[in-house]
């Protein structure tokens, strides 16, 4: 069981809900992954369309915890207003705060992020900040009231995996008591295992599952990969070494010459 901010979660995998081939495949993927938290967004409703109602019914039927996001926001004001609207619609104070700073990389605007986080934390939100792996920014986010950090490991949707292992390892080392969830950039289950082996508390991903040839199978694979990485981290891994060390005992070795 994963204890996250006073909430017990059966899984350390958090899954996005966008880009699936169909609502049915989304639902099956969520179930196959074992995730207990799904991310959702808010968008303009079409008059009389009721698309939001259908999607919301589907999500509620999954029985998972909801983590709304402020995806697409480029300013503090946009993010704060979107967060407030999300709290009213989804009935949760959890909010994944994104303030995008660069349209090509979707890199967060960390200055706006810290400001939005401070406003929202003071207003009673539990802020999950989509941030970089910068330790100084992480400190500011914690000072602003964040209890969890969500560093990217590569640009959103890039599938590159952890491109700066050293930075992630450094972040884990600097904030031993803070829940750290890698968000964005994962491409394959081994990437998830790698960050979990570093001691991260969870991963959040979307595209790698939703755009797979078989999203349900990939969701299941990611669920196992996250578990494997966590169990490996908890079990204590060997440190690599530059020279060989025989695994078979040398004592009692036959001598034929």
């Amino acid at each position, binding site marked *: 069981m994963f204890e996250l901010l006073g909430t017990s979660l059966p899984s350390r995998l958090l899954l996005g809900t966008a880009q699936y081939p169909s609502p049915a495949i989304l639902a099956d993927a969520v179930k196959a992954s074992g995730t207990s938290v799904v991310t959702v*967004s808010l968008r303009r409703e079409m008059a009389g369309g009721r698309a939001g109602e259908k999607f919301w019914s589907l999500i509620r039927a999954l029985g998972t915890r909801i983590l709304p996001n402020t995806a697409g926001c480029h300013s503090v004001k946009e993010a704060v207003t979107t967060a407030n609207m999300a709290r009213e619609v989804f009935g949760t104070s959890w909010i994944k705060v994104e303030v995008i700073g660069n349209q090509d990389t979707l890199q967060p605007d960390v200055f706006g992020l810290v400001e939005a986080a401070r406003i929202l934390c003071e207003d009673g939100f539990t802020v999950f900040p989509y941030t970089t792996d910068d330790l100084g920014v992480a400190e500011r986010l914690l000072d602003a009231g964040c209890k969890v950090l969500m560093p990217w490991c590569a640009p959103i949707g890039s599938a590159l995996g952890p491109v700066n292992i050293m930075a992630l390892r450094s972040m884990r080392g600097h904030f031993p008591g803070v829940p750290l969830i890698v968000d964005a950039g994962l491409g394959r289950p081994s990437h998830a295992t790698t960050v979990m082996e570093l001691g991260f508390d969870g991963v959040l991903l979307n595209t790698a599952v939703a755009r797979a040839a078989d999203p349900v199978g990939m969701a299941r694979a990611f669920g196992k990969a996250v578990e494997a990485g966590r169990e490996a981290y908890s079990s204590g891994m060997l440190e690599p070494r530059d020279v060989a060390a025989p695994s078979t005992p040398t004592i009692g070795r036959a001598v034929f010459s």
Partner: protein
Amino acid sequence: MKLMVNGEAHEIAATTLAELLAALDYEGEWLATAVNSDLVHRANRAEFRLSDGDRIEILSPMQGG
């Protein structure tokens, strides 16, 4: 009066946010509303008086990552 609703211009006779939602066939508990970039709570829509030129956003749950 002239209003911008989800980015589109409308000429509306409604005077409150609740009347606007009814007039344009927006209904449901899953909707969130903002006027001029500030949230207007569901409970306050009936009393919230609109002004000419207001920008209204009506949002609902959508896929996200």
